[in-house]
């Protein structure tokens, strides 16, 4: 086990260096004046200031020299200046990240609970009505573009019924949250509201979370459903399950205590990837729902050609994804000893 983790950790720096090279290759395609924004921490005061930066940071030097300079900056946490967020990129990432994490967590719980339940039901009733319904449901699920789904639920539940508005908070709640009497412990509104003892703000935040969380979940429901189903089908055909039945256990015990725990091993891996994959989904979901998190910011940056912000976030999330994959693989190896041999 230790060997396995060490082996994985040894590959990690190679991938991270590759990641930085790829990002830098894209940076190199930009003109020197756009690249200048990578090195500063405030907007330029005069036109000439820009020229100075180009010279000072060697943006007219050979590419390998520039790569080294850039890498030293990045390692020190300087990802440049974001035009769209009007602050350094790293600060902007830290400011927007809690909102995105909050949304991802609130989507993750329903995905797993509903997905696993539907998957188990589909497997134990294979080829019966519920299995067919689950199959159709999941095909439609991954055929439905996130933004079309988002626009449709907004059309019905906001424009028509006015139940769940877009945004993160209502205006009155936003005033309280940004005031000095409200302490932002985590930046996640639902958690902060609890910690500050404000049930009214908790409710308001939840009301804004319902639609985006639903939009983020439905695609992954389909995924978790399918993984659970096929792994459950594998498991319930194995001898030890037959033995459990033969010795006269109740069917519910056979399923819940013997079959399901083993069937959930692949789900744990996929679940880890889903949590990371939500980072992908948030770009569109946050844009549709005007939910100010990393995804919303990055979509706006791309539109305003604020490449520095986009590249910064890509680097940040690429690194995050690499680390998450590592954790998932190790977790998988821990849950299923057969993997470690491979």
């Amino acid at each position: 086990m230790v060997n396995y983790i060490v082996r994985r950790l040894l590959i990690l720096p190679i991938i991270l260096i590759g990641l930085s090279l790829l990002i830098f290759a894209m940076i190199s395609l930009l003109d020197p004046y756009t690249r200048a924004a990578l090195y500063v921490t405030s907007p330029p005061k005069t036109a000439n200031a820009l020229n100075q930066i180009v010279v000072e940071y060697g943006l007219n030097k050979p590419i390998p020299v520039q790569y080294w300079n850039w890498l030293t900056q990045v390692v020190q946490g300087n990802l440049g200046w974001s035009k769209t967020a009007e602050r350094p990129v790293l600060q902007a990432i830290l400011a927007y990240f809690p909102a995105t994490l909050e949304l991802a967590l609130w989507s993750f719980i329903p995905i797993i609970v509903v997905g696993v339940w539907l998957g188990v039901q589909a497997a134990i009733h294979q080829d019966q009505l519920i299995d067919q319904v689950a199959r159709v449901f999941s095909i439609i699920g991954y055929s439905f573009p996130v933004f079309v789904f988002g626009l449709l639920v907004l059309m019905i539940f906001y424009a028509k019924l006015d139940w769940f508005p877009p945004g993160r908070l209502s205006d009155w709640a936003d005033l309280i949250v940004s005031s000095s009497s409200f302490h932002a412990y985590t930046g996640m509104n639902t958690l902060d509201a609890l910690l500050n003892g404000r049930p009214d703000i908790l409710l308001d935040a939840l009301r804004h979370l319902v639609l985006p969380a639903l939009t983020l979940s439905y695609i992954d429901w389909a995924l978790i459903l399918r993984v659970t189903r096929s792994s459950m089908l594998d498991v319930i055909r194995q001898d030890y399950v037959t033995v459990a039945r033969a010795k006269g256990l109740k069917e519910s015990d056979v399923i819940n205590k013997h079959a399901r725990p083993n069937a959930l091993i692949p789900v744990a891996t996929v679940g880890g990837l889903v949590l990371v994959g939500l980072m992908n989904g948030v770009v569109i979901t946050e844009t549709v729902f005007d939910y100010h998190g990393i995804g919303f910011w990055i979509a706006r940056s791309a539109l305003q050609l604020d490449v520095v912000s986009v590249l910064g976030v890509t680097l940040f999330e690429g690194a995050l994804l690499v680390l998450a994959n590592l954790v998932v693989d190790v977790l998988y190896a821990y849950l299923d000893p057969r993997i470690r041999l491979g």
Partner: protein
Amino acid sequence: MPAWLRALFKNPASIAGVVLLIGFALVAIFAQQIVDIVEPAVAQMEVVQSPGNPYQIPRDGFTSQPQPPSATHPFGTTEGQYDLFYGVVWGTRTAFEVGIIITTLTFIIGMLTGLFSAYYGGITDLVLQRIVEVFLAFPFLLAAITAAAVFGPKVHNGITTGIIALTLFGWPGYARIIRGDVLTIKERDFVLAARAVGVGDFRIVMRHILPNSMYSLLVVASLDIGTYVLTFAALSFLGVGAAFGYADWGQILSFAHDWIPSLATYWYIVVYPGVALVLYVLAWNLIGDAFRDALDPKMRGMRGG
């Protein structure tokens, strides 16, 4: 009839997929004729940006308020008086183009990389696989947005930006799969036999390895068309895929973002392009599901990637 083709007509779901797809193909082929017949007035309208390009949606004035379906505009108009029917019909052609071009490009690049990597092995394999891993390390959509933001200003026309962005980060998946296939095939006896009688590297790859590793994968790859169209539409929705006013479903839907509080009134700016996009992707996925069952029963219900 080969087995994979027979698989298509086994269950009602895949038949529905085939029927839908044929319908879309007909609309794409006869786009011009359909527009001429259904809305002759719009077909005659001047296009302001890049005139003469049939992919640019004609505008009936410049008022920002969307207009409801009428005799002249059967699906109504969206923000800026872009005609929705025209956009949806021509958007079908865009959908086929985007899907087929991206799938072909990613497949060729992935195939060459995977083939090279597996056949030569050793240090070549090690380096190429690390490169593939780096590309796979990015969240796909985010990477595509980045690429689109970098390349967008350089190639500002039509759908090129989105195609470059998705191709750049789409190929590594295929490289992975083909590498695995080639690794098993190159150990088989017929390859050894060919080498024993002195056949050169190039010929072994082209005549013996490639045909044996590619067949099933080609089918799977063609089914990714739906996924690419969906992702491309997402890029367009964010404003970095297709050019402004281009007949692309995602691009048309992006107009709806400005009218969210009044979508109950302007439902048509979401429903028509939205339904077209959903049905198109659904058609590919229904067919894909049937193919996967036929190719590998164990894979039933699983999606790659």
